[in-house]
C-alpha cells in the first residue's frame, strides 16, 4: 500500500464529479462534471465566489460528502462507494483536515489534540517526526495548554500540527486563515508552504483570499460548479487578474 502511494503521482483526483442537492424544484447543482488532479507534493488552492462549489468539491474529495455522479480517488483508493467504516479509516490514516474554526477539543491539551488522530488509530507518533512537526509549528512551551488558553493563531497552528502528524496523503484546508488576523494568517500559510517544500506534503486549500492563494503552486478557479481556469505559480497580482478575467471575483 505504502509502495503504491509513493509511486502514485496524483494524491487526489476527481473525475467528472457531479453533486446535486435536493430534488425536483428545489434542485441545486453544486458541481457539474468537475475533473481535477492534485499532484503529490504540491500546494493547490481552490478559489471561486460564494456558491461556486469550492467547498463542496473539497468535501467530496475528502470523503466527507458523497458525489452524485463521477468518482473520487485519494492516492490509489477510490473513495466513491466506500462504507462508513472504510471512510473513517481513510480519514484517520490518509487525510488531514484544517478548518476555519480550528475545531480543537477543548478538553484536551494542545499536545493531546495533536496526537488525537494517532491515539484514535492506536498508533504511537514517530518521535523524530513529532519533534520536527512541533519544532516547525513553534508551540514549544504552550503544548500543555488547553485551546481556550491559546490565541487564534496558536490554535490554528495546533490544528496544522494535528493534520501533519499522521503524514496523510493529502491535507485539506478549508479557509484556514479565515478567522485570523493577517499576521497570524501569514504565519500559518508560510508554515503550510514549508511543509510542502520540505516534507513533500500535499495540501489542497479552499480560499477566497488572493494573498493566501499566492502561497500555493497552483490555483484552480471554480464558478457555477465548474472549473473555469487554472494558474500555475501564482502571485497576488496574477490571481487578481485571473479572477477579473474569468469573472470569478469573490
Amino acid at each position, binding site marked *: 500500500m505504502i509502495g503504491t502511494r509513493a509511486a502514485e503521482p496524483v494524491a487526489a483526483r476527481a473525475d467528472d464529479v457531479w453533486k446535486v442537492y435536493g430534488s425536483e424544484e428545489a434542485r441545486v447543482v453544486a458541481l457539474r462534471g468537475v475533473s481535477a488532479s492534485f499532484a503529490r507534493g504540491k500546494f493547490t488552492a481552490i478559489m471561486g465566489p460564494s456558491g461556486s462549489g469550492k467547498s463542496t468539491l473539497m*468535501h467530496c474529495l475528502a470523503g*466527507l*460528502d458523497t458525489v452524485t455522479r463521477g468518482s473520487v480517488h485519494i492516492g490509489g483508493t477510490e473513495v466513491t462507494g466506500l462504507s*462508513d*467504516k472504510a471512510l*473513517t*479509516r481513510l*480519514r*484517520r*490514516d490518509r487525510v488531514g*483536515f484544517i*478548518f476555519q*474554526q480550528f*475545531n480543537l*477539543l*477543548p*478538553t*484536551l491539551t494542545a499536545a493531546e489534540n495533536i496526537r*488525537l*488522530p494517532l*491515539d*484514535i*488509530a*492506536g498508533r504511537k507518533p514517530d518521535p523524530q517526526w513529532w519533534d520536527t512537526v512541533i519544532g516547525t509549528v513553534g508551540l514549544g512551551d504552550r503544548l500543555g495548554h488547553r485551546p*481556550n488558553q491559546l490565541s487564534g493563531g496558536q490554535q490554528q497552528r495546533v490544528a496544522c500540527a*494535528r493534520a501533519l502528524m499522521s503524514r496523510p496523503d493529502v491535507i485539506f484546508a478549508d479557509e484556514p486563515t479565515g478567522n485570523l488576523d493577517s499576521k497570524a494568517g501569514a504565519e500559518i500559510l508560510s508554515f503550510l508552504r514549508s511543509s510542502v517544500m520540505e516534507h513533500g506534503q500535499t495540501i489542497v486549500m479552499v480560499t477566497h483570499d488572493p494573498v493566501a492563494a499566492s502561497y500555493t503552486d497552483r490555483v484552480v478557479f471554480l464558478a457555477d460548479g465548474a472549473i473555469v481556469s487554472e494558474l500555475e505559480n501564482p502571485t497576488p497580482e496574477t490571481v487578481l487578474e485571473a479572477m477579473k478575467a474569468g469573472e470569478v471575483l469573490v
Partner: protein
Amino acid sequence: MLRATLKSLLSRKLRLVLSGLAVVLGVMFVAGAFVTTDTLGRTFDNLFAEGYSQVDVAVTAKPKVAVSEMEGEQILTPLPAALVDQVAKVGGVEKATGVISDDGARVIGSDGKVVTSYGPPRIGMNWVGTDDLMQMRQGRGPEKDNEIAVNEAVAKAAGIKVGDQVGVLTQLPKQTFTLVGVWGYTNDRDSIGGVQETAFTTAQAQRSMLGQSGMFTQVVVDVTKDQDPARVRDQIAAQLGSGYDVKTGKQLAADSAAEFKEALGFFNNILLGFAGVALFVGTFLILNTFSIIVAQRTRELALMRALGAGRRQVINSVLVEALVIGLIAAVLGLAAGIGVGWLLVTLFGSIGGGLDPAPVGVPLAAILSSLIVGVVVTVVAAVLPAVRASRISPIAAMQDVATPDRPLTRVTVTGGVIGAIGAALLGVGLYGSGSLWLILGGVLVTFIGVALLTPLIAKPVVGGLGRLFSWSVPGRLGRLNSGRNPRRTAITAAALMVGIALVTGVTVVIGSVKASVAATAEDTVKAEIVIGGDQNGPRPPVFDDAVLAEAAKIPGVRAAAGIWNEQVLIDGERAYVTATENLAELAEAFGSPALPALKPDQMAVSTKQATEHGWATGSVVKVQMPRGGEHSYTIVTTYDEERVPGSIMLPAAATKEFGITQPSFGFVRLADGATVAQVLPQVKALVADSPEVNATDRSSFIDQQVGTFDTVILMVQVLLGLAILIAVLGVINTLALSVLERTRELGLLRAVGLGRAQTMRMVTVEAVVISVFGALLGVVVGSGLGAAVVRALEGEGITDLVLPWGQMGLYLGLAAIVGVLAAVLPSIKAARLNVLAAIAHD
C-alpha cells in the same frame, strides 16, 4: 416576545419531551394515587351497600374493646338468644333473626392446606336460608350439626364439591363436616367482594364461632312493609337501652365503608409520599434541562436583549416555556395517572377474588393536584435558569457562544450552609422531638445541601472514576466530557443520588432493625422447637392448644408452653396482653429465669410496664376482656422485658374470654441429650391437624420472624424505582443535550477518524461515569442518613448497625448498567451525525 418563545419551544420538540417526561411520571403517581383510592372507595361503598341491602335494621352488642380496621380485628360481643325475642316484639318488626357471622372459619382445601382469601374475611355463619341475593347452586343448606354449606368462592378456592368431607378450623380445633350445599350470588357471582362464607347449623355455629351456646353476634330485623327502617331502629334502640348498637342497613354500609376508607387514606398517603420523592427528583431534572436550554439559547436571548428586550421579558420568556411544558406534562400525567389507577384497581380486584371494581372516576382532587403540582414544580425548577438567562449581556450575541466556568465558591458555601441546616434539623428530629416531619424535612434539606456541594466533589471523584476507562481513547474522551461541566454532571448525578440514598437509607435502617431483632431472638429464645405460622391478615394463625400438653409428654421434651395474644382494656386503655397456660413452663421453655405458674386471678408484668403504670407486686389490675366481663388480677411478680414473649402475662383461664381462644405460638424446649432431629417429627405430627401452623427448629423460626423486613425493603425498592427511573431520564437528557451541544466536536472527531463504535463508546463512558458517581453519592449519603437513624434508635433496642455492602455494590453495578442503557439513544444519535453537517454546525 411571547410568540418568539412559543416558536422556539416548538422548534425543539425533543427538549420538550425529555424535560416534560419527568413531570409526567411524577404527576402520574399523584393522580394515580387519587384515582385508585377514589375508585376503590366507591367500590367498597357499592360492596357494602349491596352486602347490607338485605338488612333493614341490625342489632349488635357494643364491643367491649373497640378496635379500628387499622389496628386489628374487631372482636364481636355476643348477645343472648332472649334478645332476639325481645326485638321481635317491638312494633314494626316483622321478623327478627338471630345471626352468627364472624371472621375465622378457615376451610382446609383438598390439598390439605388452609384456604386463604388474600384480604377479605373468612366468615363462619349460621344457616338461616337464602335471601334475594343468594342463589343455591348445588344441594341445600346444612340441617344437621355435621353438615356445612359454603359459597362458590370457598368451593372453588378449596377445590371441594358437594358430598366431600371437609375440615374446618374455627374457635374449635379442626372438625370435619359433610359439604351439603354450595351457593352463589346474583349476576353469576361466586361471592360478594371475595368474602368466603361457611354456613353451619345455628347450634354448631354457636359452638364453632362463639364457643358459647344460646348466643348470637347480631339480630337482623325485617321491618313490616309500610314501616320506615329508621323509625323501627329508634324504637328498638329505645327498648334495648345503651348496651347495644342498633343501625339500619344503610348506616352499617356507610360505617363499614368509612372504616375501609380510613385504611385507604393511609394507602393514599404512602403513594403520595413516593410521588413526592419522584417529583423532588424530577425538579433536579427540570432545573438541569432549563439550565442547558438557557445555555443553548444564549445567543438567541442575547439577541433579544440587543433588540431591546428587558430582563423581565427574558425571565418571562423562560418561565412561559416552563409553564407550557408544566401544563402539558400535567395533563398527560393526569391521563397516565388515570390509566395507572385503572390498572391498580383491576389488579386489586383480581387479587381480592371477585371484587367488582367500580367504574374508574377522576376526583376533583386528582385534577387539581395534578395541575398544581405539575405546573408549580416545573416553574419553580425553571426560576434559577430564568434569572441566569436574564443576566446574559447583549454583547454575547455578537460573540462566539462561550460559557466560561463560573467559580463554584458561592454554590459550595450555600450548599455547606444548607447541608448543615439539614443535618441540624435531622439531629433535632432524631434525638430531640422525634417528630417525623422534622426528620423528613431534615432529609430533604440535606439532599439539597449535598446536591449543591456535588459540583465541588464532582471534579475529583468523576476524574477518579473515569480513570477506570482511560485505557482507550473513547474512554478517555468520555471521562473528560463528564468532568467538563461539573454543575450539570452534579445535578444529573444528584437526581440519581436522591433515589439511591433513600433506598440505601431504608435498607440500612430496616436491615439494622432486622439484625437487632434477630440478635435479640437469638439471645432470648432458648426453645429448640417453635410452633407458629405466617400471619397474612388480621387474624394470627393459631393451633389446637391440646398440642401443647401432648408435646410436653414427648420423651426428651423438658418443657412446652404456648402463648395467646389479645387486645384488652386496662383501666380503660387498650393494651396488648399475652396469656399462657403455665408461666412457669413458658419461662422454662423460653429459657428465662424461673417464674411462678399463675393462678386464675394472678398476672405478671414486665418491670418496664410496672414502671409505666405505677404497678408493683401486689397491685390489683382490672382487665376488660373482649368477650366477657372485667376481671381483677393481682400482680405476683415482675420480670425483665426481654426474657418472656409478652410484657403483660395473664393466666390460661383468661383465654376463654379472648376473641381468639387458641394459641398462636408454642415453644418446646428439649431436655439435655435430646436432639431436634428426634423430637421435631413428633411435634410436627401433633400439629398435622392445625395446618395454619408448622413446627420448625429455632433458626427457621427466627428467619421466619424477620422475613417480613425483607418484604418491606423490597416494597420500598419498587416504589422508589420510579424516582430512580426519573433520574435515569435525567442522565439520558443530559447526554442528549451534551451530544447536541458538542455536535461540532463530534463532527471533528469523526473527521479525524473516530469510528462509529468508538463514538458510541465515548458517550457511554460519559453516561456510566455520571451514573456511577450519582449512585456512589447516594450510597454514601444514604448510609450516613441510615446510620444516623439507627444511632437514634439505639434506645429502642436497635443496637446493631448493618451496612448492606452487597446491596450497595449491587446499586453501583446497576448504576453502571443504567448508564449504559441511558447512553443508547444519545450515542446512536452521536454516531449517526453527518460529519459534514456537524462540522458546519454552530
